[in-house]
């Protein structure tokens, strides 16, 4: 039984993270941006699981649990914001929310 090398797991995690980042930067639909954020959080969780599996400790899975709760809270608030924006501007375009004078 040959083990899965840690480098491959971390590489997959990095590729998924970069794909999620590209999604966040490229897409302008708020729902798609939130979905890409989910991919990024999932990739960081994968990195923690790979490290936890490499060292045989439970800490990696605990970090994944914390990321899971973070993702749940984030998606609840984010989708609430998306609903608000849709009802005020009647669109889901992230560029439409540019009225704040910063």
């Amino acid at each position, binding site marked *: 039984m040959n083990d899965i090398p840690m480098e491959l*797991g971390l590489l997959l995690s990095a590729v998924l993270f970069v794909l*999620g980042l590209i999604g966040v930067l490229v897409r302008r639909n708020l729902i798609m941006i939130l979905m890409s954020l989910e*991919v990024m959080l999932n990739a960081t969780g994968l990195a923690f*699981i790979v490290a*936890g599996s490499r*060292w*045989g400790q439970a800490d990696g899975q605990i970090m*994944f649990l914390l990321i899971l709760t973070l993702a749940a809270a984030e998606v609840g608030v984010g*989708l609430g914001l998306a609903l608000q924006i849709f009802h005020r501007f009647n669109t889901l375009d992230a560029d439409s929310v540019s009225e704040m004078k910063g």
Partner: protein
Amino acid sequence: MALILFYITSAVAIFATVMMITRLNAVHGLLYLILSLLAVGVIFFLLGAQFAAVLEVIIYAGAIMVLFVFVIMMLNQGQTTIDQERTWLQPRIWIGPCLLALILLVELMAIIVIGGNAETGHLVDSKQVGVALYGPYLLAVELATMLLLAGLVGAYHLGKPMLKIKNPGENNE
């Protein structure tokens, strides 16, 4: 064998994610996102983290995706939605996610039929996770509960004005 399964599953995950960020329609992207999350769950299983794999399927691919579907359904109302859904449900849309899901199912069946433990690395079972979670990480659990409570209050606060606006209207759900 685990390495081959890992390669196949990684290919499925990356392909599904690329398809997700290139779909123009949010629902099509959602289908591929679910496949990506399921593939990562299989990788968790292969890495010997069964508890995380189960949580990935139940919470990520289950609960959080239901939230997305719910919001997409709330944002599409009216008669045009029916025609829209008819175009969404064409076979060429869901044949891709179905094929990817079939690959994952074949992998799981191969693991079951061959028997033994396909997972590699150090097996960390849920008992170890639970002991560590309620031992040294108790403060982190408390913080996570506070975060979830804050998220609940925030989501309620953000959704409440909309309900108030909609209630005098013609129909509320």
